[in-house]
């Protein structure tokens, strides 16, 4: 198995800490809130408010489970439109109260189903991209496991994007990529190697800004190694961003995404 395929395997491990575990590991006194005030409470998306070094912060995550039962309840970490709308509601609330936002992303992608299409999966993702470029509070997004497609990007428009050492971030799952381009999903390992989806690849092309280390003995064994790293750097990042006037912050966020693309002419 090549290195990229190994990373994909790690990123998807059922024992890997979930978004809620990250949130509770990084913030104190976290309280979870529910619902998009419109249609439903999507259990694949979690969010609420907690304290970071004594200061309120809004945290949002895409939630998987450790067991089949939990995963079924969380729809395997694949959100419906109402999940993205819940996230947006909580982000707007953060803006209202001047709280910075941290997102913990772990999803193979947005859910593909009839109800998701009926309720506007495309619109929900698009709206988040549009609105996140206007939120006047700092945003840090952390890819903690799988980061797949528009379903991940919908929570990853940020001032800084970080990624766990064994996380992945890609346009599509390697299986989907192989299936679309080669009509053969069994060539997923080959696809993974080609796709440049590892943290090392993504920091080179500036898709991510920071690689969050995992303990050598395994993130499951020594989770606090990772959460205390995130905590420390998050305090610092928010402190820096909050010193910036909001207009400057938004301008820098615009420029962060404006630079992407390779073309001639």
């Amino acid at each position, binding site marked *: 198995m090549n290195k990229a395929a190994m990373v994909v395997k790690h990123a998807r491990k059922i024992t890997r800490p979930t978004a809620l575990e990250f949130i509770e590991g990084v913030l104190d006194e976290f309280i979870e809130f529910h619902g998009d005030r419109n249609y439903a409470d999507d259990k694949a998306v979690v969010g609420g408010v907690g304290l970071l070094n004594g200061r309120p912060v809004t945290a949002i995550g895409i939630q998987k489970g450790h067991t089949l039962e939990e995963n079924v309840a969380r729809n395997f970490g694949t959100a419906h439109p109402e999940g993205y709308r819940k996230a947006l509601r909580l982000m707007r609330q953060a803006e209202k109260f001047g709280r910075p936002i941290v997102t913990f992303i772990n999803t193979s992608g947005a859910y593909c189903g*009839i109800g998701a299409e009926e309720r506007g999966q495309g619109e929900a993702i698009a*709206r988040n991209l549009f609105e996140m470029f206007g939120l006047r509070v700092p945003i840090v997004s952390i890819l903690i496991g799988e980061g797949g497609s528009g379903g991940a990007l919908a929570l990853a428009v940020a001032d800084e994007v970080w990624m766990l050492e064994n996380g992945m971030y890609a346009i599509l799952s390697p299986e989907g990529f192989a299936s679309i381009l080669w009509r053969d999903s069994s060539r997923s390992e080959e696809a993974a190697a080609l796709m440049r989806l590892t943290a090392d690849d993504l920091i080179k092309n500036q898709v991510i800004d920071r690689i969050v280390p995992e303990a050598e003995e395994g993130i499951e064994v020594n989770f606090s190694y990772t959460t205390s790293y995130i905590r420390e750097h998050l305090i610092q990042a928010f402190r820096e961003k909050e010193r910036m006037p909001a207009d400057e912050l938004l301008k820098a966020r615009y420029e962060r995404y404006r630079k992407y693309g390779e073309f001639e002419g």
Partner: protein
Amino acid sequence: MNFFKRRNYTVVSTEEPVKGAKEPETPKEEAPSVPDGLWLQCRSCKQPVYKRELDEYKICPKCGGYFRMTAWERVEILCDKDSFEQLDADMTSKNPMGYPSYDKIIKKAQEKSGLKDAVLSGTCSIGGFPCVLAIMDSHFMMGSMGSVVGEKLTRAVEYATDKRLPVLIFTTSGGARMQEGILSLMQMAKVSAAIRKHSDEGLLYVDVLTDPTTGGVTASFAMLGDIILAEPNALVGFAGQRVIKNTIKQDLPEGFQTAQFQLEHGFVDKIVERQKLRETIALILKLHPTENGVSE
């Protein structure tokens, strides 16, 4: 910024030639193009249609179904005569992921479509109202969005913001371009950011969803119009139908992910027949006057 007159282009027939066989479920990029083919197959009624029977709107004379149009064909039916001036005409793609033979794939698509990449952008006037216009073209790698599509759209929108002009985008796309990997995904954010800035200036963005509009394009600028129009029967959705079927293990309802379905569910303002697009868009521009948007 350079402007290019529209003189040098070729119109290429890109509908599937009649093979007697059934229409494939998903359009194939590699479907043969026969520039001199006299007969085309209608996607709706599957009947062969004599090419000369098609007028400039490319509507099937047998069933009223819509043939897919090239970007330049749309310029012809939409813009005031000789008003279209192209922006970024020569922008071409690189190979950021080192995808095998990507340069060859691009070259083939360029030959087939007569375009450098999957979107044409420029300035024009419609019914006397100036606007920035971008038209995606499904004949170039199924309108997939990579760096060039994202950059051309972003520049077009930024140009409109700078000149205080409305933006009009015709969408057609299979989604993000896989061959450029994560950079294609980033184009969704980049274009959406440009639209946000344009919107913050109180400027109008109208988009027209045409067949097919799916994936990353639906999940970004296609769903962000102040006013969203759609052509009748256009396929519009986020996930591909095969993917949904495989996920839920059941058949999809009749009319699923059509323009009408999107209208019913509240995601489209109005379905507009192709012959009425020009006057409808001119009216919308008239109803949104800006200091630059006044009729000459």
